[in-house]
């Protein structure tokens, strides 16, 4: 009885989650006439697959995609590498002021980002980075509090013996980190990687502030700019939006367990 109720709840919830996506997918395959038709048609007739090709023809969609990919991949590499080294220093190395650093990392997780919008803009402006991809990449190369925390917890859980056995062969700390600890931390690294990819991929605020030329647009900003240009062709903008989700969906399907793990271990979203 309780199980039946639970199934009912979870199933109807899942329908509420997915039906709007299907409706939007349907919208992206309509002609404009059908897109605005009242009462609405749910299944496009005919199915206009050409909408998707038309987005590629009429907009620099490939450039948006490339920019988003470059930013996301470099952000992932940067955040994984630097959060791992910092997390390692906090977990396993003799670092003066270690406790204070950890406290600060935890504290800045709660630091409202609103305070950083204007000063970071001015900082990147003085560096001459406006309208480049750098402001969207470089901050990830300075480690993120959440990544540090996740990696620290992971490295703390690795038994000392491994380290000592390797350290005694005359290896330096980098080699211990690289050859001994990092391979043991793979699940955490994957978790941090998908978390960073997602955060970077769906960002709107930062690209809106930093990017001004269309050739630098990421997918969200690019699609948003099409909305203004293609009035009367909303089915095409919908197609563009659907396509911008696709790479994210692929990553999600392939790495689902790391998403769940990331949510649980971190308790923060991007």
């Amino acid at each position, binding site marked *: 009885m309780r*199980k039946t*109720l*639970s199934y009912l709840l*979870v199933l109807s*919830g*899942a329908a509420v*989650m*997915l*039906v*709007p996506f299907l409706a*939007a997918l349907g*919208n*992206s395959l309509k002609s404009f006439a059908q897109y*605005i*038709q009242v*009462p*609405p048609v749910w299944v496009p007739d005919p199915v206009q697959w050409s909408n998707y090709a038309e987005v590629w023809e009429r907009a620099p969609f490939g450039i948006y995609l490339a920019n988003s990919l470059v930013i996301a991949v470099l952000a992932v590499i940067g955040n994984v590498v630097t959060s791992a080294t*910092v997390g390692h*220093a906090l977990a396993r*190395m*003799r*670092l003066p002021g270690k406790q204070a650093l950890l406290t*600060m*990392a935890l504290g800045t997780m*709660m*630091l409202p980002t*609103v*305070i*950083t*919008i*204007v*000063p*970071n*803009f001015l*900082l990147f402006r003085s560096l001459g980075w406006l309208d480049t991809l750098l402001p969207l990449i470089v901050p990830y190369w*300075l*480690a993120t509090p959440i990544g540090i925390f996740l990696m620290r917890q992971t490295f703390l859980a690795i038994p000392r013996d491994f380290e000592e*056995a390797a350290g*005694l062969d*005359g290896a330096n*700390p980098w080699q211990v*980190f690289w050859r001994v600890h990092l391979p043991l931390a793979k699940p955490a690294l994957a978790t941090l990687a998908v978390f960073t990819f*997602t955060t970077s991929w*769906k*960002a*709107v*605020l930062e690209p*809106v*502030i930093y990017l001004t030329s269309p050739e630098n647009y990421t997918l969200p900003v690019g699609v*948003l700019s099409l909305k203004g240009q293609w009035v009367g062709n909303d089915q095409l903008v919908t197609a563009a*939006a659907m396509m911008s*989700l696709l790479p994210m*969906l692929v990553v999600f399907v392939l790495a*689902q367990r790391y*998403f*769940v793990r990331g949510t*649980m271990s971190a*308790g*923060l*979203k991007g």
Partner: protein
Amino acid sequence: MTVLTRKARPVAAGPPATARTRRARERAWALAFASPYLLHLVALTAWPVLASLFFSMTDYDLMSPPTFVGFGNFSRLLGDEVFWRTLGNTAYFAVLFVPTQTALALLLAMALNQRLRGMALFRAAYFVPVVSSWVVVAYVADSVFNPQTGIANQVLALVGLPAENWLQDPALVIPTLAAVAVWKGVGYMMVLFLAGLQAIPEERYEAAKIDGASAWNRFRYITLPGISGTTFLVLVLTSIETLQSFEQVYVMTDGGPHGASELTVLYLYRQGFQFFQMGYASAVAWVLFVLVLVLTLVQFRLQRRWVHYA
């Protein structure tokens, strides 16, 4: 084993390191490992906090150097009706969004926690909106809340209710935005709650059942205290985030209709990046910053009253 190998340690090239130089070298390595975050603290934490405090006391249009105006921006904010309205809008949005999302997420997590078959699949379904950008969500939401062609009005028509204008109705825009935000975020929170629920020992429920406790009492006296730690974390983080909500309104309504969904960070964005009043924008940021901090501190204070750590 360690003792033996330690004796067998090969002597490094060069003069034998004394304990002190070895420790210095270890520190140098540790510092090198931690250096990205040290730079982060300077450039991305200390600088923004101090700089925005400084700029909040200046007039700065990016063209000419900033001029000091003391608390001028703040007193201007006090009399800025639009700013107050954005704070009201933000609070209204948060009051609708945070409790609804929390309650729904808990309900779904409890249902999923019945060891339902296909749980991973359901979890995935609830997670798709979480990983979608607001731009995608805007178009998905349009398929529901478009006044002419959306699903919502079709459903209302089915049960004989009049059509609504949703995002184009000043009275409905914030509730509609909150509903979309719940739809987008509930899966994330549900996963958090699921983890919290799974950490509650099964024996507690069994003991309560033997004692004849009702389902409600088991929920009230076992489940709720058992997940209070998770709930606290979730509440703190979502309130911090909700008060700074920007992307959703920027993409979906641009603050409209007639400013009915103008949230504070959208107002900050306009002041800074459309009107180039960096000083005024910084003052808005500081007021919001202080409000968020106060709210967080209050939540931490209240936590003693209701959060039980097992």
